[in-house]
């Protein structure tokens, strides 16, 4: 199965900008550990993954009554903090949950992709 893993909120972590250099390096090591753990695991693969620019750079597109309206900022306040994503191929939810424990403890949403075939 493919899952989109949205890193939605900082959870119990403080915001990235409040980390000093050493703390930022520690968080980066957790991301590296996640990549390494995925690498080692049969049947799991990171298909894509990016850090995302802050909400100030997001554009929201809505089509209402046939006309398209663009607004500045994120779709909802709830995902204002969304910091990044992974697209992961994994056998099942449990395998993914186990690997995600290696990441910093962000709030996340895991959405399976629909298999069209």
């Amino acid at each position, binding site marked *: 199965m493919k899952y989109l893993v949205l890193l939605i909120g900082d959870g119990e972590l403080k915001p990235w900008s409040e980390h000093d250099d050493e703390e930022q390096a520690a968080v980066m090591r957790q991301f590296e550990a996640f990549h390494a753990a995925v690498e080692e695991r049969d049947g799991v693969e990171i298909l894509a993954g990016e850090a995302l620019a802050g909400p100030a750079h997001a554009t929201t597109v809505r089509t209402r009554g046939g006309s398209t309206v663009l607004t500045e900022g994120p779709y909802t306040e709830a995902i204002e903090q969304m910091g990044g994503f992974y697209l992961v191929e*994994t*056998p*099942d*939810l*449990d395998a*993914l949950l*186990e690997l995600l424990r290696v990441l910093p403890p962000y709030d996340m949403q895991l959405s*399976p992709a629909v298999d069209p075939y």
Partner: protein
Amino acid sequence: MVTPDVPSQPGLEGLERVVREEWGRLVALLLAQFRRLDLVEDALGDAVAAASRRWPVDGAPANPPAWLLTTARRRVVDRLRTEDVARRKEPMLVVDARQRQEGARTMADAGSLVEDDVLRLVLMCAHPALAPESASALSLRLVLGVPTADIARLFLVPEPTMAARITRAKKRIVGAGIPFGVPDASVLPDRIEVVAQTAYLAFTAGYAPGTGPDLLRAELSGEAVRLVRVVLGLRPDEPALVALLALMLLQHSRRDARLRDGRLVLLAGQDRSRWHHDEVAEATRLLSSAPLAGPVTPTTASYVLQARIAAEHATVASSDDTPWDRIVGLYDLLLQVSPSPSARLARAVAVAEDRGAVAGLAELEGLEIPDSHRPAAVRAELLSRAGDTDAARAAYDQAIAACRNDVERAFLEGQRAALRRPT
């Protein structure tokens, strides 16, 4: 008397027993083979219906579970054949590839492979990604074969609502990618703890007072006890399960004494000869067994402490001998491990018994439980004991207004009427 050694020819009674004992194993085997959560339960239901027609006529088969498995397999295969091309895209349950290669197992394979399948089934039904009530209902349905109507009654919802909830849970399992599998050993104890919580939710649902006259659904709570026994059979040393079984048995042992002539009987007034003392003895043994000798998690500790409190009540000859000071001490520990308003309320009751009504009332200060009549009911009782009849009457009014269970309300009204008349 010597029982004649004849081969049993079970008619419907035998079928009922086989279904009760083997349902989970049959579901697990069918899921491992076909991975179709949407078909397996119906196919097994059809097989049971076929058995109820055939066995009384043809006699029971030599191996009843194997007969049911074979019949259910044919049903699934028939359904798969008739599915059109579009339906063939029906999403399948995630099953470990290694496990699939082991091939179709049979009931004759009674060894560890089938036991593993039952554990997979239990862990799938009680997955933390399912809402707790859905997980509870699904576990009772798939692992134990409890009829949907009974599960609905247990959780106090209409049967169609429960049927829809179970269907939704099955769809979510397939859609969210919850596997029919056993997770890594590092997370297995956590997952077993979720299984325990799932079973306890079903158990307490049976004792939760409902809105109608159906005060005690205790025989249905017994199904949750059975669920814990099944899982404990698979993982005999799991502290959370051992502690939870002890707690459930102690609470459940009093089921026959809680009602008399349709009226609620409080602990102190219960006929202790109607308690199930064999269950008390089993619980006491469990509490001192090896799996609980070492350090345990907070959840397990809270089960142990609640069980110890129940055991203090269960093992004295009369309610006058209850060691209330020890019970207060156990509640102190429980509040440290897992603070909750209901534990505080219960502690206040114990304090009142130990040190008098006034001391108990002081413990009730500022205690509220939303949508519950219990704090007001306890306050009323203690005010009455303390001689403040007017305040007691007001507290009973408050409790009666908040109470949504007919039998409990009748009890409170009786208590209010028995207060000394205003002078």
